[in-house]
């Protein structure tokens, strides 16, 4: 029915991954693979995961998101989660899911701003 595709685009030194509104399990599982593959293909510093279209975050989806952030970390990248809707934040908290220590911001705009900042750790990339 609705758009079920994950969109992955490279914006300067960042990978912008946008999740559809109500992805089924196989689409959620594809998030990990597509993101990590794109990370290794492109020379990027990190990942911005856009959840602004997402209408529900159940335990499976939340676990996949936090695992993906962990994997991106192992590959040397930073993850910023952007745009979670209020209804999704309320529901996920009541359900009991967390996204680990992953950084979250209100909008994709803000996430891209942060991602564009010079690396404070002094890592040299590019």
């Amino acid at each position, binding site marked *: *029915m609705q758009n079920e595709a994950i969109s992955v685009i490279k914006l300067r030194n960042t990978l912008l991954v946008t999740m559809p509104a*109500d*992805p*089924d*399990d*196989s689409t959620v599982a594809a998030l990990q693979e597509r993101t990590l593959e794109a990370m290794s293909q492109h020379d990027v510093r990190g990942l911005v995961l856009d959840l602004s279209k997402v*209408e*529900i*975050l*159940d*335990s*499976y989806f939340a*676990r996949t998101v936090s695992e993906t952030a962990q994997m991106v970390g192992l590959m040397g990248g930073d993850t910023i989660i952007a745009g979670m*809707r*209020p*209804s*999704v934040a*309320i*529901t*996920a908290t*009541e*359900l*009991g*899911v967390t996204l680990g220590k992953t950084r979250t911001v209100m909008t994709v705009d803000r996430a891209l701003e942060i991602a564009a900042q010079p690396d404070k750790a002094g890592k040299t990339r590019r």
Partner: protein
Amino acid sequence: MNGHPHGEVKITVESDIAVARRAVREVAMQIGFGPTEIARIVTAASELSRNVHKYAGSGVMQWNAIDNGSNGGLELLFEDHGPGIADVNEALREGFTTGGGLGMGLPGAKRLMDEMEIQSAPGQGTKVVVRKWRRQ
């Protein structure tokens, strides 16, 4: 209660979890729940239909528009003929899992809904009923 809106979704493959979510979202909207209540109901439906798929392989979700005279609401029934739950109280405990999950399915769904009833015994399958009432 005859003639009240109702329907069912068979859960046989993994993608039926998303089909169940969409059916629940649509009927919750029709009943007039607000966006946060809809997110709660749809999330609970997702956890419970995933339990059916994960533990029993297949089953069914039935939904019923309900009315107690002063309030309207939505009732969801999840039924499977899987292995059943040996200790329902334990299954409702935070973090308890036998399926390699996070163990938040049942207790989480209970928190998101207003009412939950579970009927289950080993080898007898599982029946979970949850309800959400519209706030005035």
